[in-house]
C-alpha cells in the first residue's frame, strides 16, 4: 500500500510549499500534479496486487484486498477531479492555500486506512486521520462566523461520536478478545452470543451512523455543510462520506455478517429514518447549498442499503454508488461555487447566460435524482438490487423509491430555476475554458457510468 506513504509525503511537501512557493496558482498546479502522481501510485498498487490474494501489512493491521484498492483508486480519481474543478475556488477561501491541499492529502491518508483496515484500532485511527483535517477545513474561512461555528460543531460532534466508537470497540473486545476483524468472525456467532458483543455492535453502529450522517444522528450535517466554505463542503459530502461508508460496510460485512439478524432491523429503521428526514427536509430548503446538505443525508440512506444487504453485490454497490454520487455532487458544487447567490432564485435564468454550466448541472442533478442513463441510476439500481436479492426488507425498497420520487422535487427545482425562469444570475468569477472542459469531462463520466457501466464494473 504505497499510496498511504505517498499521500503522507505529498501532504508534507504541500506544507513546505506554503513558504517555498509564493504564488497561489503555482501551489494549485503543484497540488494537481501531486494528486495525479497519487492516482498513479494507486493504480500502480492496483496493478501489482494479485486480484484474489489479500495481503496483510503492518503486523496484520491492514488487509489489502481487491475491493479496497479499487475503492482507494477511485476515490483518489475523484479527488483529482475535485481539485481540477475546484482548484481556483480553494485559492479564494483564505490565505493558507497550500495547507488546504496538505490537509486534503491527509484526509486521503485516512481514506486509505479506512478502506484497508483489518483491526478495530486502525478503524479508529483511520477515522481520526480523516476527521481532524476536516475540522480545520470547515473553519478555514476564519472571518466568517458561520464557518467557525461549523468547525466547532463538527469537532464536538465528531469527538462525541468517536467516544461512542471507542466504547463500542472496548465492549466488543471484551466479548471477542481481539481487535482483529477477521479473527472476530470465528468468535462472534449467533448460538453463543455474548451480550457485550451485541452492545458493542450497537455502539459502533451508532458511531458510524454519526460519521455517515444517518438519521437521527444527522443533526450536525446541515449546519456543518452549510457553514463550511463551499469547496470543502463538496469534499466532505462526497469522498469523506463515501470512505466512512466503505469502513462501515467492511466491518459489518466481514465481522458482523453472521449476526445480521440482530442488527438488520435497527439499521433498517435508521435507513428509513434517514431517507425520510433527508428527503422531506430538503424539500423545504431555500438555499441550494443547504438543500445539497440534506440531499447528502438522503443519499446516505441509499448507501445504507449496501450495508443492509449482506451479500457480494453490496461491495460493487457501495463502490459504484460512491463514485457516481461523488462525481455528480462535486460537479453540482463546482457549478454552485460559481454563483454569488446560493438560493434557488440565484439559479434563475442560468441556462440563458451560461448554457453549458446549466446543461452540466442538469445532468448532475439527473444523476443525483437517479434518472436512467446517468451514473446515479446505476448506483441506485445496484444497491436496490442488493437488497431485493437479499429477499426481506422489500418494504424498505418501496419506501426508498417513494422517497426518491420526493427527491426529484427538490433537484428539479434547480432545473426549473435554470431553464424555465428568467433572471440574470451573478457569477463570482468568469467561467474559463478550463472550467468548461472539466465540466464536460465530469459530465461525460456521469453519462458513461450510466450508459456503459460494464467498462467499469467488469473489473471490480
Amino acid at each position, binding site marked *: 500500500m504505497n499510496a498511504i506513504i505517498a499521500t503522507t509525503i505529498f501532504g508534507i511537501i504541500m506544507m513546505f510549499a506554503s513558504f517555498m512557493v509564493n504564488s497561489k496558482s503555482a501551489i494549485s498546479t503543484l497540488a494537481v500534479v501531486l494528486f495525479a502522481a497519487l492516482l498513479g501510485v494507486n493504480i500502480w498498487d492496483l496493478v501489482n496486487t494479485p486480484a484474489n490474494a489479500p495481503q496483510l501489512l503492518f503486523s496484520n493491521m491492514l488487509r489489502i484486498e481487491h475491493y479496497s484498492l479499487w475503492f482507494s483508486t477511485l476515490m483518489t480519481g475523484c479527488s483529482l477531479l475535485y481539485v481540477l474543478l475546484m482548484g481556483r475556488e480553494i485559492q479564494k477561501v483564505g490565505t493558507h492555500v497550500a495547507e488546504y491541499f496538505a490537509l486534503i492529502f491527509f484526509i486521503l491518508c485516512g481514506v486509505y486506512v479506512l478502506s484497508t483496515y483489518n483491526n478495530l484500532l486502525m478503524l479508529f485511527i483511520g477515522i481520526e486521520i480523516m476527521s481532524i483535517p476536516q475540522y480545520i477545513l470547515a473553519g478555514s474561512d476564519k472571518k466568517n462566523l458561520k464557518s467557525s461555528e461549523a468547525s466547532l460543531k463538527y469537532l464536538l460532534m465528531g469527538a462525541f461520536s468517536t467516544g461512542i466508537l471507542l466504547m463500542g470497540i472496548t465492549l466488543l473486545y471484551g466479548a471477542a478478545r481481539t481487535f482483529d476483524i477477521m479473527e472476530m468472525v470465528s468468535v462472534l456467532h449467533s448460538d453463543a452470543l455474548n451480550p457485550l458483543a451485541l452492545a458493542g455492535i450497537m455502539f459502533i453502529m451508532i458511531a458510524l451512523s454519526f460519521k455517515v450522517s444517518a438519521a437521527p444522528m444527522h443533526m450536525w450535517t446541515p449546519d456543518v455543510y452549510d457553514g463550511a466554505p463551499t469547496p470543502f463542503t463538496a469534499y466532505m459530502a462526497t469522498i469523506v462520506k463515501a470512505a466512512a461508508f466503505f469502513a462501515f460496510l467492511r466491518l459489518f460485512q466481514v465481522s458482523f455478517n453472521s449476526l445480521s439478524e440482530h442488527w438488520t432491523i435497527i439499521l433498517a429503521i435508521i435507513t428509513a429514518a434517514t431517507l425520510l428526514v433527508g428527503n422531506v427536509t430538503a424539500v423545504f430548503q431555500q438555499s441550494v447549498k443547504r438543500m445539497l446538505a440534506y440531499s447528502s443525508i438522503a443519499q446516505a440512506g441509499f448507501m445504507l442499503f449496501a450495508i443492509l444487504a449482506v451479500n457480494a453485490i453490496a461491495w460493487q454497490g457501495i463502490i459504484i454508488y460512491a463514485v457516481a454520487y461523488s462525481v455528480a455532487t462535486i460537479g453540482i458544487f463546482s457549478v454552485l461555487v460559481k454563483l454569488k447567490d446560493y438560493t434557488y432564485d440565484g439559479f434563475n435564468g442560468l441556462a440563458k447566460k451560461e448554457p453549458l454550466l446549466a446543461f452540466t448541472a442538469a445532468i448532475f442533478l*439527473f444523476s443525483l435524482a437517479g434518472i*436512467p442513463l446517468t451514473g446515479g441510476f446505476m448506483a441506485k439500481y445496484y444497491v436496490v438490487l442488493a437488497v431485493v*436479492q437479499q429477499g426481506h426488507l422489500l418494504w424498505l425498497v418501496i419506501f426508498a423509491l417513494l422517497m426518491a*420520487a420526493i427527491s426529484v422535487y427538490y433537484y428539479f427545482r434547480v432545473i*426549473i430555476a435554470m431553464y424555465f425562469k428568467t433572471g440574470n444570475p451573478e457569477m463570482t468569477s468568469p467561467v474559463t475554458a478550463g472550467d468548461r472542459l472539466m465540466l464536460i469531462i465530469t459530465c461525460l463520466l456521469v453519462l458513461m457510468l450510466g450508459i456503459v457501466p460494464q467498462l467499469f464494473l*467488469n473489473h471490480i
Partner: protein
Amino acid sequence: MILILLILIPLLMGILSFAIKGEGARPLALISSILTMAVSGYVSGANYTAPITYTHDWIPILGTQFSLVADGMSSMLCLLTGIVVMVVMIVSVNKPVEKPGSFYGFLLLSQAGLMGVFLAYDALLFYVFWELALIPVYFLCSIWGGEKRIPVTFKFFIYTFVGSLMMLSGLIYLSTQTQGLSSYAWGDIVRAGSSLPPEKQQWVFWLIFIAFAIKMPVFPFHTWQPDTYEQSPTPVTIILSALMVKMGLYAVLRWLLPVLPAGVAYWSDTVIILAVIGIVYASCIAIVQTDIKRLIAYSSIAHMGLMAAVAFAGSGVGMHGVMVQMFNHGITITGMWIIVSIIEDRWGTRDMTKLGGMATVAPKMAIAFVIISLASIALPLTNNFIGEFMLFNGLFSGTEASHTVMMVLAGLGIILGAVYTLNMIQKTTYGEAVAMRTGKDLTVNEYLGLAIIICLVLFLGVYPKPLLDLTSGIASMIVK
C-alpha cells in the same frame, strides 16, 4: 439493424438540431420525421413474414441486453409514431416558435424514446426508454407551454416518475426471480412472473400496473392529464395524447398481461370497474367544458378507459380491438388537436362560447373537423368504428357475466361522447360567426397534414384488413 435506425435517426437528428441556431432545425426535423416514417413503414411491411429483431450486449453482468423486437404490435405503434410525428412536423413547419433548435431537438428526442419503448424486449431497456421519452416532454411542456406550465408539468413529471420507480422495483424483483442468473429478457421475465405463486403476483401486479395506470391514465390516476394537455404546446399535446398514453396501454399488453397472469386475473375486475368509472366520469365532465382543449382531453380519458377495460377483459376479439384502436385513436386525436391548434392560432381563443361559424369562414377546415369528430364518435365507415366495435364485442363476449353490465355502462360513454362532440362541432363550426369573422382557411401544409389523417381515417374505416392482419397473431398470443 433496421430497427436501430428507428431510434438512431430521431436521436442523432435531435442532438444535431440542438446545435443549429435559427430556423434550420425545421427542415432537419421534417426530413428526420419523414425518414423515420419511411423506416417504420418498411418495418411494418416486412412484418407480415416474421418479426424483425436486433440484439446486442449492453450490460451483461446485470443480465440486460440491448434487445429490440418488432412484432406486429410493436411495428404498428412504431408506424403510428412515425406517422404522427411526421404530421406534427408538417403542420408546424411554418408556425413560429421560440428557439426552434431546442424545440425540435426535444421533439425528436422524445420520438426516439417512444420508438425505444415500443421496441424494447428487455425490461431494463424498456424502463430506460420509458424515462427517456418522458424527460424531453417535460422540458417541452415547461419551456413552451401555457401560463401555468411550470407547476402543471412538474406535477405530471412527479406523478409519472413515482409510477416508473414502482415499476422499476417490480421489474427488479421479477428479474431476481428468473432461473439461474438474473435476466431482464422478455421471455425470462414472463417465465419468472407467471411461475410466481398467485398471492405474490397479486401484489407485484400493483407495483408494475401503477406506472401504466398513471400513464394511460386510468381513473383515479388521471388528474395530471387535463391540465398537462391544456398547458402544453399543441405538438407536445399530440405527442402526449396520441403516443405517450399508448405507452401505458402497450406496456400493459406487453409487460403485464403475459407476465403476471394470476395477478391480472385477480385484479381484472377492479381495473375494469375503475376504467368504466373513468369513462362515465370523464364523459360527464367533458360535456360541461367550454374550453375545447380540455374537452378533448377528457374525451381522451374516456376513450383510453374503454381500451383499458377491454385489455383486462381477456377475450381474443377484444384484445385485437385494443391494438387496432390504439392506432385508430392515435390518428383521430392527432387530427382533433391539429384543428384545435389552428382554431386557437387563427382566432385566439379556445372557448366554445366565443366561437362559431367556421363553416362560412373556413369551409375546408370545417369539413375536416366534422369528419374527424365523426370518427372520434366512431361513426361507421370511419376507423374508430372498427376498433370500438371490436372493443365492445370483446367486453360483451368476455368470460364473466358481470362484463355485460360493464359493457352497458361503458356504452354510456359512446352516447355521452356523441353529446359533447356534436355539441362542440355545432358551437364552433356552425351558427353565427362571432369571433371568427375573418381568418384564413387551411394553409397548404395544414391541408396536407389533415389530408393524411383523413385519408387514414376513411381508408381504415372501409378496409381495416392491413391493420387487423398486422396484429392478429399477437392478440391470440396475449390472450392465451
